[in-house]
């Protein structure tokens, strides 16, 4: 039993990691009051940017950073359209997804099948010795370990810094933030661009750690799962981690079942994460927790007068 479960849980952590980054990035964006449905597109663009940088420079860390920066760039486009031009957030986000997927498929053609230096698993000193826990959590690559810390920083940022409080106020009621002398426009830019950075890190994980080669369709629907998870998590980072691992688990389980050669058609198994997405959304709705959403989410700040 354990021989089956421990590798499954370890794989869960691995496939949950990019979802953690993407979910927290989307959560950051939404905390500022902006809905970004371009997560899927940002993930792909960032994955390619990270892969290309790592291949060119030979440094996976530079690649990781490049993924984040590519995410920031995509976030900046979204911010400009929604915050400055007062464009529709849903439309802009969907356009970003289509743009990102198309762009990566097009620019990625020469690299398909090529390897790049990435992050390899290593045993984390001491902690990996813990029986069970060590095997599940501490025999991964560096980016997984980073993903353990990011939610804590995220939580601390919103709970214990004034900037985090300002972003929350902007997402809840921009008029109140403005009346308090804050600059809601700038704060929204900050939230969207920082959120883009976090999503970008998730993209970098896909091409530098999850695989070490370039293939098309790396994002594989994780962006959409992240959008759903933000709702599932009620905009709280701790629950986002739980949700990300839940999905990671289903993805890993599904792969394992296929490898074991069940009679179930593989397309049915591939469907599992998305069936779970719908279930999760129905459950969240049934519990009526939409009220936890930032009150001004999805609405633009109209200029005064």
């Amino acid at each position, binding site marked *: 039993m354990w021989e089956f479960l421990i590798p499954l849980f370890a794989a869960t952590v691995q496939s949950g990691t990019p979802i953690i980054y993407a979910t927290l990035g989307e959560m950051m964006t939404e905390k500022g009051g902006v809905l970004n449905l371009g997560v899927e597109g940002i993930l792909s663009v960032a994955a390619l940017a990270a892969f290309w940088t790592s291949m060119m420079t030979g440094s996976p860390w530079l690649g990781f950073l490049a993924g984040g920066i590519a995410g920031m760039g995509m976030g900046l486009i979204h911010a400009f359209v929604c915050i400055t031009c007062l464009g529709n957030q849903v439309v802009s986000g969907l356009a970003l997804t289509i743009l990102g997927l198309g762009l990566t498929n097009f620019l990625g053609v020469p690299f398909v099948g090529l390897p790049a230096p990435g992050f390899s698993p290593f045993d984390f000193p001491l902690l990996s010795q813990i029986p069970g826990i060590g095997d599940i959590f501490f025999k991964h690559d560096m980016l997984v370990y980073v993903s353990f810390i990011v939610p804590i920083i995220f939580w601390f940022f919103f*709970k*214990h*810094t*004034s*900037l985090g*409080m*300002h972003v*929350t*106020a902007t997402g*809840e*009621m921009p*008029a*109140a*933030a403005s*009346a*308090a*002398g*804050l600059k809601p426009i700038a704060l929204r830019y900050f939230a969207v661009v920082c959120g883009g950075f976090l999503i970008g890190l998730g993209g970098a994980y896909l091409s530098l750690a999850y695989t070490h080669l370039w293939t098309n369709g790396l994002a594989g629907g994780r962006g959409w799962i992240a959008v759903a998870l933000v709702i599932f998590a009620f905009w709280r980072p701790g629950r986002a981690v739980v949700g990300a691992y839940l999905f990671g688990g289903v993805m890993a389980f599904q792969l394992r079942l296929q490898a074991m050669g069940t009679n179930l058609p593989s397309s049915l198994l591939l469907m599992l994460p998305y069936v779970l997405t719908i279930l999760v959304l129905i459950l969240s709705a049934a519990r009526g927790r939409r009220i*936890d959403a*930032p*009150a001004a989410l999805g609405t633009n700040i109209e200029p005064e007068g």
Partner: protein
Amino acid sequence: MAMFVRPVRERAIPEGTQPVVSLKGLTKRFGKVVANDGITLDVYPGRIKALLGENGAGKSTLMSMLAGRYRPDEGVIEVDGNPTKFSSSKDAIAAGIGMVYQHFMLVDSMTVAENVLLGQEGSFFINPKEFETRVGALAKEYGLDIDPAARISDLSMGERQLVEILKLLYRKSRILIFDEPTAVLTPEETNRLFEALWRMTEQGKSIIFISHKLEEVIALADEIAILRRGKIEGELDPNAIESKADLASRMVGREVLLEVDRQPADIGEVVLEVKNLTGLGLVSVDLDVKKGEVVAIVGVAGNGQKALVEAVTGLCKPPVDSVFIMGQPWRKFFAESTWNRSMCYIPEDRLGLATLPNHNLVDNLLLTTRKGFSRGWLLDKKRAEKDTIELIKKFDIRPGRIHALAWQLSGGNLQKAVLARELYREPRLIVAEQPTQGLDVSATEEVWNRLLAARDLAGVLIVTGDINEALQLADRIAVIYRGEILGILDTSDPDTVGKIGPLMAGLVD
């Protein structure tokens, strides 16, 4: 519920006290409308100044200038004797002037302490617990009873107002402006607010209290300034007020500005009957309107006019068998009502309830008349356009383009457009709320004449705060006070003019 009893204090301003803020000849225009006209006002430390005036008298404009939201066209604001120019509300806050708006600027999901300290945290890293002690201490200093750890969404309106006050106190505001602060409060909360305001003056704060509620102003204020049609009508000492009726008539004004020639029309059948309507804040209201007459509901705003209009027009449901329209019970009337030869409503909120701001005049015409333009599933837009063009001509609506959007029209033209649409329906009962508020003289005259002409087919019920309007248009005037009709007066009786003021103030002899 007993009203707040004001502690006794010398109301006269001590000799040689310097005003903390002086407004000198402030004028503000919006297009052709003069919202504030040469206003001069002094505010002294430790005192409560009430600004009394009807809706649209210019109170909010005046205070927005003081709070730095608008810049005056003429005149200066002096703080501690120094002329100052505010370019934003931030400047005003820095000068110690803070305003509590009617709509609270609070983040619902945050705590009281977080809201008070938002933007004033003092450091990058913050500690919610420390926030709560800081704000708790401030609340205690001013005797305000509120839990700093509570979430705004769990608070009552009165408590939310205390949070707004705490925000100002934390920012060391010396002059606190309250814009109709009691509108959202229960009587107990109002009393508590007044006690809090009183305590703040004892700590040297100045308070400007904007209201149209006479009792409150008399109970609370050290000085009363009456604002009417953008001008200071007079400043008086609450102790020297002879009667509430006098104050009411000074606030509303009685001089005749405009007259129309109203010929009596043929009185026909009853089109609206309100029978012993109690509930929705109304107390046993009896009223009827016959075809060919105009009945005016007059009263200080907020005395139940809104509930009465909503009950008649179908916006909210009155108790069974209390409202009859064109002879039918309310429920039956609205179940079977047709688009024309029925009831029409001209709301006070022209650009929200009456029209769609971002739609053109054709679409706005279709809002209430679409049944008249439908062919099966389809709308006959061509015919609607043709009729809109005719209406624009007939009512002289400018700009004379059917594709002009509603928000682009001036108040007068928009009201004419609404009137054109509603009269197109050949109504039998017209309910018009503040039909000429904010309009200039010629537009007012036009609207009055149209309403009078409509009597050929319809009975008209108007709700107005303008006594002159009521006297000019109405055959009968019903005075409403705290949800009760205190009297229905015939305008052909010369004594009526003198009786309206006292009734509006709730005085029945």
